[in-house]
């Protein structure tokens, strides 16, 4: 087992897939000569040349459209948004074109495209650069939404996303790029829609994904010392969603808390809470709770940013209240 960073795992997944399939290309701002704004595409230009690792001008709507058009005729683009914040000017191409192309053409145009890049909040980047948008994209049928939390998952899930014939929203956590973890040396994939129990427990089910997994794990470690046993479900992908994994865990623990980096209103956690009360109501000893980012744009001030983001202490406090 090799120890890789999250960004190295992503890089390895892309390189291996591109070596295998000449129809795959990577496109985005600074992915080539600059070696990637977050260095995820480091070395790829040298390996694959300018025809397959393609720098674009700053024009997300335009190059997202290039990706979609090229996928209509059989290419398999990986479109990098430098950050998901910038994807909003391309959201028309993602939702009105990519997500619906196969449906509105009566199945004539599969859409083998991956939109990927840095998401999430933190680092005092302020209101326009600190946002978790997975709920926006998970809202739309036709898209798949993937949010890996570990290097191992990032590798296996990105490979599956690239091989998928549907438009995949692959949101990488900006603050996790440097995080390290074990990644098997042998090639593997992780099917989209398969969550994982990241920690076994008996008292409460904590449902989470992406960076929020780290808050969950930290809280679980704190609570373990108090004799509270937390089970952590990492969804890994929001669409498709591993619903049964959630229900099976809730049936065991009888309590559920969703921890997410996004805003609370109409956030994906609300959908999970709905599903649990709908499908596992009889097993619940407490209403499903959520820990989210605060319902405000992100402040630059360090103390306000800290207060705004979910964290392990808030998770632990919420769990203590739920167990009282």
């Amino acid at each position, binding site marked *: 087992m090799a120890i890789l960073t999250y960004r190295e795992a992503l890089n390895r997944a892309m390189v291996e897939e591109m070596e295998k399939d000449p129809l795959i290309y990577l496109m985005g701002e600074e992915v080539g000569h600059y070696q990637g704004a977050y260095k995820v595409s480091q070395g790829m230009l040298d390996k694959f040349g300018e025809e397959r690792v393609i720098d674009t001008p700053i024009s997300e709507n335009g190059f997202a*459209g290039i990706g979609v058009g*090229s996928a209509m005729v059989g290419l398999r683009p990986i479109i990098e948004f430098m950050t998901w914040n910038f994807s909003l000017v391309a959201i028309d191409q993602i939702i009105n074109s990519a997500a619906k192309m196969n*449906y509105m*053409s009566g*199945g004539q145009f599969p859409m*083998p495209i991956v939109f990927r890049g840095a998401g999430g909040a933190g680092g005092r980047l302020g209101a326009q650069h600190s946002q978790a948008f997975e709920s926006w994209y998970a809202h739309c049928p036709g898209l798949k939404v993937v949010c890996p939390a570990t290097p191992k998952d990032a590798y296996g899930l990105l490979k599956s996303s690239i091989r998928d*014939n549907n438009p995949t929203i692959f949101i990488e956590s900006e603050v996790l790029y440097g995080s390290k973890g074990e990644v098997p040396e042998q090639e593997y994939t992780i099917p989209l829609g398969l969550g994982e129990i990241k920690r076994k427990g008996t008292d409460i089910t904590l449902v989470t994904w992406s960076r929020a997994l780290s808050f969950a794990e930290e809280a679980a470690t704190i609570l373990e010392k108090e004799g509270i046993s937390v089970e952590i479900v990492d969804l890994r992908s929001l669409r498709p969603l591993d619903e049964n994994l959630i229900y099976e865990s809730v049936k065991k623990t009888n309590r559920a808390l969703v921890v997410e980096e996004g805003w609370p209103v109409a956030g994906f956690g609300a959908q999970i809470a709905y599903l649990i009360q709908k499908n596992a109501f009889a097993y619940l000893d407490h209403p499903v709770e959520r820990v989210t980012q605060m319902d405000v744009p992100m402040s630059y001030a360090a103390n306000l940013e800290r207060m705004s983001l979910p964290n392990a202490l808030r998770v632990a406090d919420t769990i203590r209240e739920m167990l009282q």
Partner: protein
Amino acid sequence: MVSSVPKDSQSVSELKEFYRQMVLIRKFEEAAAKAYSVGKIGGFLHLYIGQEAVGVGSIASLTPKDYIVSTYRDHGHALARGLNPKPLMAELFGKGTGISKGNGGSMHFFDRNAHFMGGHGIVGGHISLAAGIAFASKFKKEDSVTICFFGEGAANIGSFHEGLNLAAIWKLPVVFICENNHYAMGTPEYRALAVKDVSVRAYAYDIARDHIEGDEVRKVRDHVQVAVERARRGEGPTLIEVSTYRFRGHSMSDPAKYRTKEELEAYKKKDPLMRARHELELGGITTEELDKMDLEIQTQIDEAYQYAETSPEPPLSQLHKYVYAEDK
């Protein structure tokens, strides 16, 4: 009317074919309008009547390996591509036998085999898609050319500028055809375009440009042909503005009160079908022969109408089908 008389039998038969296609479009849409008015067609129905020479002339310059990207006003482009009117009409009726199995409707005709890459409903959003299809041709080292239709209203949206810029810097084989019918829904061009001539925007991207009148079908073909060949030679995109006019409103629900009767009548005198018919007569085709042709096309449209009407709706099991593609 200045008429260019077809000079030899080849140009007569070519013009005859163009005339046939234009009449097919006209009659298809008249039938669609009728079906819409009695509630057999729902949603929006944007008719192409008056603009036929643009689609027919442009698409005549293509080969089957080339690609066409269209707008929500896509019936004419699809028929000019040679698609069978039956599945097109069935699509308008929302039937399972439709070209997009009833999932698309008027604005979303698609035919993968014919390289008809869709009618797209968001104004201008498809311009960068077209650049993407052309990008793929270049990537795969195929010499296919993509042509992309849009109206002058689309020329103000970001996707137009981004699509043209990307196509220009990468010398993509794409021809952008602005069908300027002078109204973006109800907004006349003088209220929307800072510079009225859309084609001069080509200068901003250092690409070739052209500007023509759209009532003479062979002229449209000749001009688009030049751009298509330029693209095929690897010399990059062209922006062509074709001045045209729609005789109907923006869609069937638009009474078009924002324009005068006089203006409409003046344009109707430049009807591309009338013009082609007149030129054919000058080339020696008799009125009887042309009338016979019209009648045959009318029969074809009646059959398409009948087919659409009697076709079954899509099965309810189709509702969830196609949201996601099958696995690789």
